[in-house]
Each structure stands twice: as structure tokens, then as C-alpha cells.
């Protein structure tokens, strides 16, 4: 088994930072995201779904504020690589309950993070090695599953197949793509480009040259959705999850870069204080 320490460390740091940001944004919105009614009708029979919804919707909004604070602390431990396995299970379960309760505020990025937090319970510690190994690979497969499913859904749409989808989005006043409106040809090329990217992503990541190219394209694609389609948290969640598909050397380089950035910012902060 290859050494995955740097990859796992980078994933923990990026996922933890994303979680802190997301929970803070929810927390500062006050009582608004915590709805009183569940989106699914809860039946009288006992089921996992009923039990979870009953728990999530029994808590008052004030308790959800505190849940955000507690989960933020657990996320900080995740960033610092100090979160024990029990803590990671609590983080996953607590975060899942939070998502159930604020159902109108949830995007694909928040869902993806919940799914990867589940697998991180397996690889948050190195021992037992087999458990960590299986969890790590299952998390990687989850990322591929997302792209495969997104591609399958888009291929079912006639507008995606004909290349008109992005032009339709450009004509929608809710999004900031109006600048593409006068260029239907470019929209067609972009639509098919997105389809090729999504369809080939689950295959491209298995070979080093294509993996780098696809991860870079993915970063550009998700940042574009953040800027022009208003999906910043989804874009950042995907970028955090890309760390799972980096090689150990690449992850180590990113970590070193982040450490250097941190050191430089601490130094400039200290100089600023003394002057």
C-alpha cells in the first residue's frame, strides 16, 4: 500500500477549512435556515429516515446554532489533524443532521462533503490499516461517482446533447452568463466541452498526465460555476475533494506551499504589530 499520509493530511485540512466556512455562514444567518417542517412526510413506522428526521426537527433553532459551533470546533481539530475517530463519527452525524434541518440551503457541495466525511471516519486514523485503505478508496470512488451521475443526467437532456444548454443558461436572468448570450457557437462548444469533461473524468484520473489535466480543468470549471452561476461553496467543496486524487508528492508540495504561506503571513502580521 502506498503512503497516503500527505494526501490524507491535505484532505483533512481542506475539508476542515471548508466545513468551518460553511458552518459559519449558516450560523451567522440566525434562525432563518432552520425550518420547522421536514421535506419528507414522516411515517408512523420506525425507520432510520424517520428517526433521523425526528431528531433533526425536534431541536429548536437555538440548539442548531450551538450544533454549528460544536461542529466548527470538531472541524478545527480535523484541520489540525487532532480529531480522533469517535470525533470524526460525531462530526459526520452532526453535520448530516444539520443538512437535514436546513434542507433549502443545501447544495451539492454540502452533500458531497457529508458523503466524504462518512469515509473519512475510516481513514482519519491509520489503524487498522485495512479500514483506512478501504475508506480512502471508497472516498475516491465517491468523487468519481458524482461525475458519472452528473454526466448521466446531462446526457438525458436533449439541450445538453444538442449543445444548447449553456446558451439557455446565458438567457436566464438569474445567472451572470448574459455576456455569452450573443455567442451561441461558443455556448455550443462550451456545452459539449462540459459534457466531455464530465463523461471522461472517471476514466481520466487513473493516468498521471490525464489526471493532472482533468483536475486542472475541473478547478477552472468549478471556479467558473462559482463566479457565474453563484455556486461558490459547491466549487470549493469539489476543490477540497480533489486533494484525494493527488499523488503523495503533489499533496506534499501543496502542503509545503500552504505552510510557507502561513509562515509568511504570520511574519508579516508580527512585523505589522511591532511597527
Amino acid at each position, binding site marked *: 500500500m502506498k503512503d497516503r499520509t500527505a494526501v490524507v493530511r491535505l484532505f483533512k485540512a481542506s475539508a476542515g477549512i471548508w466545513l468551518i466556512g460553511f458552518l459559519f*455562514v*449558516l450560523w*451567522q*444567518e*440566525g*434562525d*432563518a*435556515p432552520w*425550518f*420547522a*417542517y*421536514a*421535506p*419528507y412526510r414522516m411515517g408512523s413506522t420506525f*425507520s*432510520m*429516515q424517520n428517526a*433521523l428526521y425526528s431528531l433533526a426537527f425536534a431541536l429548536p433553532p437555538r440548539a442548531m446554532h450551538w450544533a454549528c459551533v460544536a461542529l466548527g470546533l470538531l472541524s478545527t481539530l480535523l484541520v489540525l489533524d487532532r480529531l480522533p475517530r469517535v470525533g470524526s463519527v460525531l462530526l459526520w452525524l452532526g453535520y*448530516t443532521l444539520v443538512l437535514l434541518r*436546513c434542507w*433549502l*440551503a443545501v*447544495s*451539492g457541495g454540502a*452533500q*458531497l462533503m457529508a*458523503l466524504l466525511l*462518512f469515509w473519512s471516519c475510516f481513514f482519519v486514523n491509520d489503524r*487498522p490499516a*485495512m*479500514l483506512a485503505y*478501504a475508506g480512502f*478508496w*471508497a472516498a475516491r*470512488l*465517491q468523487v468519481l*461517482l*458524482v461525475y*458519472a*451521475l*452528473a454526466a*448521466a*443526467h*446531462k446526457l*438525458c*437532456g*436533449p*439541450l*445538453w446533447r444538442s449543445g444548447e*444548454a*449553456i446558451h*439557455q*443558461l446565458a*438567457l*436566464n*436572468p*438569474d445567472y451572470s452568463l448574459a455576456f455569452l448570450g450573443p455567442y451561441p457557437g461558443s455556448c455550443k462548444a462550451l456545452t459539449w466541452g462540459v459534457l466531455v469533461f464530465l463523461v471522461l473524468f472517471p476514466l481520466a484520473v487513473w493516468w498521471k498526465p490525464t489526471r493532472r489535466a482533468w483536475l486542472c480543468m475541473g478547478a477552472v470549471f468549478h471556479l467558473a460555476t462559482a463566479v457565474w452561476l*453563484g455556486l*461558490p*461553496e459547491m466549487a470549493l467543496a469539489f476543490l477540497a475533494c480533489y486533494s484525494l486524487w493527488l499523488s503523495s508528492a503533489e499533496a506534499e508540495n501543496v502542503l509545503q506551499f500552504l505552510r510557507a504561506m502561513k509562515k509568511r503571513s504570520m511574519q508579516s502580521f508580527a512585523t505589522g504589530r511591532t511597527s
Partner: protein
Amino acid sequence: MPRWTNLIQKTLLPFVVLHTALLLAYGWPGGMVPQRIEYWAQAYARPLFHQQWSLFAPEPPACGCHIFMVDSSGEAVDLAGVRNTLVWQRMVSSACRYAEMTGSGEALPQALSGALVELACHAGMPAQCDARLVRTCQGTDHGVEQRVLSLCAARP
């Protein structure tokens, strides 16, 4: 090696494979998965592993979508314009898209009408029962379409 470690090793691979297969069946476009498999996939995935990857699919939304709350004096306030925060905009936009999916003659789902009333309260509006869904289209269906949403009729 302890017996439980051995057991974990033997069950892990089948679990990961089965888990991934069930999630694939759960998230695959509707009508393409055999009914029995879909049932088991839903039972397994929905409580803890819910995911939906059909953003802008099968078709991207053609029209802008806004919900206006109408007060007793008949004045309409755009919910999206009340707060300019990420979470608020996401909630209002999702509510509008869900309401858009409901047929024009149908009542809104209870949870959605309840959520809209709650959003209006958080926006500092008095309790109200009337809202308007406004769709602004610029493509081939150029124009503005309005639909009245009766929130109290379906309120839980």
C-alpha cells in the same frame, strides 16, 4: 490477528462495492433502474447518503424565478431582495425552483409552503398567505408569467 480485525477485512470490500453500487442506482436518472433495485437503493441511501447530481439537468432552467410575498395592502416584496447573503439567496432560489416544479393548479407541498411563510417572517414581513411566483423568460418563451401561490391553504 484479532478475530474482529479479520472479520472487518473480509467484509470491507463487499461493503464498499455494494455501497457504491447502491448509490449509483440511487442517483441514476429515473426510470432506468429496475424497480426492485431502486427500492433497496432508496431505502439504503436516502437517510444518510442522500445525493442529487441533476443540477441543470436534464434541462437548465429557461426562465428567471422569483417569489414575491403579497401583504394585506397588496404590496409585493421580492423575497430574494430582502437579504443579500449566500444562504438566503440559496434558500429563496431553491424554494422558487421547487414551487416552479409544482403544477399551476396544484397546492404547494406542505413543507415548502411552511418554509416560505417562515422565510417571510424572518424577512420581517407580517404573517401572510399570498405569494406570487414570477417567471421571467428571455429565450423562445419570451415574457413574464405570474402564478398565485396560496401558502395558508397547504400550511401544515
